[in-house]
């Protein structure tokens, strides 16, 4: 028989670290609330019959946020055999508030008080025996980071799950509340699931609409319950939900005064000292700017580029490509096969792999920022600015992660509570250039701008600009109108990330990038090579010398006209943009094949001759702008589909991104042509119309002002 243990607790309590330690798996741990955005499972080490389920971090079991609904639906409906409640020993009060709710579910609970290493260092003492008898469940002290106490925890958890030693909640509410609860219990006798009556009765008392709906009670019964609630509300002069919350916290704070002794209460911690500087009124923004600049400067311009150059020019350019060519010659393989391997696979995949070093450097920085606790501060510092265009400071976290990869970025949007803000964040996150777009930027910068330093940052500014403009425009539409989501966020204490943790994150992200190069990109480069090498030549279908006779050219010419107004109506560019949808870095590989290069390095020197015929400086930048802003790769589009949980919204998001990209690239190209040539054509007129439309959408008064719709999706996507 398989047993299930759910791992539940507040965000940022070390849940994922504990999960890794218990299951031996490799989940990355960040230090900002909401890292676990999806449920994960793994088997308990030493107990193959026990499955550990990692739930998203939650503060409560309220029906209001997506993660809380996911967690409580799982706990109430799936009923795991035990709940392992992880509690942050340095922050007992708020953590135990959740425990009081978990205890009511009628599922055995084991409490693990984490961060023993930190509390001991601070000189704090927690009396687990008092805690255990007051809460009614076994309590163990552990340190998930150092592994202390985990052995006992594993044994206790296994025993509890197998023997179903039910823990009875020991905390009670005040007299009037308990009186009403007893009435509700009596009135609903036989209607509530066994073992869960306490939970359901309290939820009914709180007038939890999800529970009311799921129980389908008769209107008469609901009225009866309501009269009981109202009596208490009148007596205690507060609403039912507040009464319950207050009394829970009262219980917890009384308990803490008995079971926890805190030393050095009023001393400034290291975390406080760091915060004094990095969230300082005058220094915060400059520090933020310097950190962001350093991250991208180091990873894109200095270390990353040197390493990437070496891989491209030396490793591939001088060793692998000529080596493979000679080897093939010495084996005497057919020309077409040599072409496939050297010009198709090696140049396509190689062009992409060349960017791995840059990405690794970027991923190291991102992992550090996520793990140390600075992310939450960024949200804090920037919230005011983000709110100006209808987003929350929390939207910055998805965007920052999205600069590594859009897929986890889109998923990180789950920490945003209200639906319109979440949707808007999902729609705009991929405007920030992800690491796979870096090769495109580097290619254009190298080939057309002599690797000028400002090109890469300008791509980020285009992304940020697109987010701001979209935010303002979308906020004024009916779909996104309403009050912005509240900003209620915990600022976790800083801590030094472990090297293992950073390595895990870098490995996870880089390996998925490399894996993609070996699978999707490999396949599509073969396809592109095939389509570009074969076609109807003078002797019928076969290998063609002239690229313009190829099948790909025929396809490309059919769609190229669409992009002519953007300045790059050549079919090669159209095809490259299209293959970019499979994976953005693919675009560079496609160019590598189409321009017949053995290796498309981002220096672009090989490109100059042929490339310059098809692009001017303005059309090259227009090409860059379009590809930065248009629909992301298939994987990210899939993530958007999952997170939107609606085909209509998904198509809307993709359509908006493509349309927006087209408009911006059109305006950019047409206006810069007009400025340099002074010819006013149809395209210029179209660009004027588009600009006028965008300006109108930007500056029109918000028509849907006070229609705040708080919509919650009760069936979260898997």
């Amino acid at each position: 028989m398989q047993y299930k243990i759910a791992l539940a607790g507040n965000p940022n309590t070390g849940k994922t670290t504990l999960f890794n330690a218990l299951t031996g798996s490799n989940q990355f741990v960040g230090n900002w609330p909401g890292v676990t955005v999806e449920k994960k499972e793994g088997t308990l080490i030493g107990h193959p019959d026990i499955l550990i389920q990692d739930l998203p971090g939650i503060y409560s079991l309220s029906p209001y946020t997506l993660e809380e609904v996911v967690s409580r639906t799982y706990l109430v409906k799936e009923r795991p055999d035990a709940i392992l409640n992880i509690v942050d020993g340095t922050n007992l009060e708020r953590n135990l508030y959740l425990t009081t709710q978990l205890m009511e579910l009628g599922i055995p609970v084991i409490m693990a008080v984490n961060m023993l290493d930190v509390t001991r260092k601070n000189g704090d003492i927690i009396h687990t025996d008092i805690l255990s008898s007051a809460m009614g469940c076994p309590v163990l002290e552990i340190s998930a980071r150092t592994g202390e106490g985990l052995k006992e925890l594993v044994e206790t958890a296994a025993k509890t799950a197998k023997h179903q030693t039910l823990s009875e909640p020991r905390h009670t509410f005040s007299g009037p509340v308990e009186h009403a609860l007893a009435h509700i219990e009596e009135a609903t006798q036989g209607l509530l699931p066994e073992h869960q009556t306490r939970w359901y009765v309290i939820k009914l008392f709180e007038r939890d609409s999800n529970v009311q709906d799921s129980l389908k009670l008769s209107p008469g019964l609901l009225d009866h319950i309501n009269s009981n609630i109202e009596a208490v509300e009148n007596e205690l002069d507060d609403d039912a939900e507040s009464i319950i919350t207050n009394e829970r916290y009262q219980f917890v704070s009384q308990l803490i005064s008995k079971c926890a002794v805190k030393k050095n209460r009023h001393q400034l911690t290291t975390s406080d000292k760091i915060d004094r500087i990095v969230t300082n009124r005058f220094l915060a923004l400059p520090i933020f700017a310097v950190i962001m600049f350093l991250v991208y400067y180091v990873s894109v311009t200095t270390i990353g580029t040197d390493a990437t150059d070496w891989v491209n020019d030396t490793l591939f350019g001088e060793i692998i490509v000529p080596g493979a060519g000679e080897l093939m010659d010495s084996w005497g393989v057919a020309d077409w096969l040599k072409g496939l391997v050297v010009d198709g696979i090696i140049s396509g995949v190689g062009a992409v792999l060349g960017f791995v070093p840059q990405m690794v450097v970027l991923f190291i920085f991102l992992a550090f920022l996520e793990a140390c606790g600075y992310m939450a501060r960024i949200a804090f510092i920037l919230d005011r600015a983000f709110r100006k265009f209808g987003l929350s400071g929390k939207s910055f976290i998805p965007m920052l992660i999205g600069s590594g990869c859009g897929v986890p970025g889109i998923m990180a949007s789950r920490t945003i509570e209200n639906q319109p803000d979440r949707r808007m964040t999902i729609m705009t996150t991929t405007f920030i250039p992800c690491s796979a777009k870096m090769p495109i930027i580097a290619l254009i910068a190298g080939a057309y701008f002599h690797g000028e330093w400002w090109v890469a940052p300008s791509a980020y500014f285009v992304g940020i600009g697109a987010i701001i403009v979209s935010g303002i425009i979308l906020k004024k539409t009916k779909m996104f109108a309403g009050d912005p989501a509240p900003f209620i966020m915990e600022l976790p204490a800083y801590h030094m990330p472990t090297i293992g943790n950073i390595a895990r994150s870098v490995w996870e992200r880089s390996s998925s990038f490399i894996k993609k190069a070996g699978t999707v990109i490999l396949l599509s480069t073969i396809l592109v090579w095939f389509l570009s090498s074969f076609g109807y030549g003078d002797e019928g279908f076969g290998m063609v010398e002239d690229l313009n006779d190829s099948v790909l050219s025929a396809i490309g010419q059919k769609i190229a006209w669409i992009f002519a107004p953007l300045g790059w109506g050549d079919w090669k560019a159209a095809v490259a943009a299209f293959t970019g949808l499979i994976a953005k870095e693919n675009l560079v590989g496609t160019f590598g094949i189409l321009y017949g290069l053995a290796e498309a390095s981002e220096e672009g020197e090989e490109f100059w001759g042929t490339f310059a015929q098809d692009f001017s400086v303005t059309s090259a930048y227009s090409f860059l702008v379009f590809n930065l802003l248009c629909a992301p790769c298939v994987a990210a589009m899939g993530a958007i589909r999952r997170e939107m949980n609606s085909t209509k919204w998904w198509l809307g998001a993709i359509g908006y991104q493509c349309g927006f990209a087209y408009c911006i690239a059109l305006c950019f190209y047409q206006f810069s042509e007009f400025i340099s040539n002074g010819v006013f054509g149809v395209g210029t007129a179209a660009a004027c119309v588009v600009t006028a439309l965008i300006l109108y959408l930007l500056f029109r008064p918000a028509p849907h002002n006070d229609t705040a719709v708080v919509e919650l999706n009760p069936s979260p996507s898997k």
Partner: protein
Amino acid sequence: MLTLKEAQTGHDYEVVKLHGTGAMKRHIMDMGLTKGTKLHIRRVAPLGDPVEMTVRGYELSLRKADAEIVEIKEC
């Protein structure tokens, strides 16, 4: 009536009452800002919003517009 929106940096307060209803009120209460809770205003973000405070032993940040529903008194 003094609300958390008008709270001064460096001062200590006590929650008197939470106004309003629904998701936001519950969320604020879940984070530990309930009747009688003591809080210390730590700082205001560089752009003037949100506010950071110590409550129940941890750091919580709250936007001023949301903090408006929390009625407080100085202590």
